[in-house]
């Protein structure tokens, strides 16, 4: 029989995976919407940054006890985290190349380019982490 800590870790891990996917999707949707408007202002970026930071702190189990945090951040989760960071990094690079090419056909400022590159990187990392964790949990 599973202990209370293991059960909580299992449950939190599932919630974390779902939350990462939802957060990535919401961020992608809101950032895409802003592309048509005047772009994200500093306040929007601060709010986005704070929300993502709070999520990452919660997801890392920082506010949980050591045993629970250890299970939440075990080797399996670490592999998912490293993979998703790598996916985010490569997607950012690819988006930067696309943004560079687009400058020949469309006029847009560096602020827009930064917004697109960062959004793609953060969203793809969050979603891929969530998906990887969900797939890992499947028997």
């Amino acid at each position: 029989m599973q202990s209370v800590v293991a059960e909580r870790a299992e449950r939190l891990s599932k919630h974390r995976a779902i939350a990462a996917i939802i957060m990535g999707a919401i961020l992608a949707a809101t950032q895409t919407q802003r592309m048509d408007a005047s772009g994200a202002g500093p306040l929007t970026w601060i709010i986005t940054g704070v929300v993502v930071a709070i999520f990452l702190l919660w997801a890392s189990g920082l506010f949980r006890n050591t045993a629970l945090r250890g299970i939440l951040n075990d080797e399996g989760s670490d592999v998912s985290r490293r993979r998703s960071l790598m996916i985010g990094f490569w997607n950012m690079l690819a988006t930067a190349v696309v943004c560079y090419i687009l400058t020949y056909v469309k006029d847009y400022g560096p602020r827009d380019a930064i917004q697109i590159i960062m959004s793609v990187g953060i969203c793809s990392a969050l979603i891929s982490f969530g998906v990887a964790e969900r797939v890992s949990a499947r028997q």
Partner: protein
Amino acid sequence: MTERLLNALRAERERLSLTQADLAERVGVSRKTINTIENLVFSPSALLALKIARNLDKRVEDLFWISGED
């Protein structure tokens, strides 16, 4: 040819009538980590492999081996 780390984790775990959750708790990892090792999604570190082997009363080389060497 790409070498892969194979294992007999599922068979040994079932031999001892342990669930993935039971073994995960003994080793101190999550159930999904045991699941991904059994499904060959990722290779555990030496530390984790040794812990798993100890908890299944097996030598690590009886539990894990490189493909093509069996």
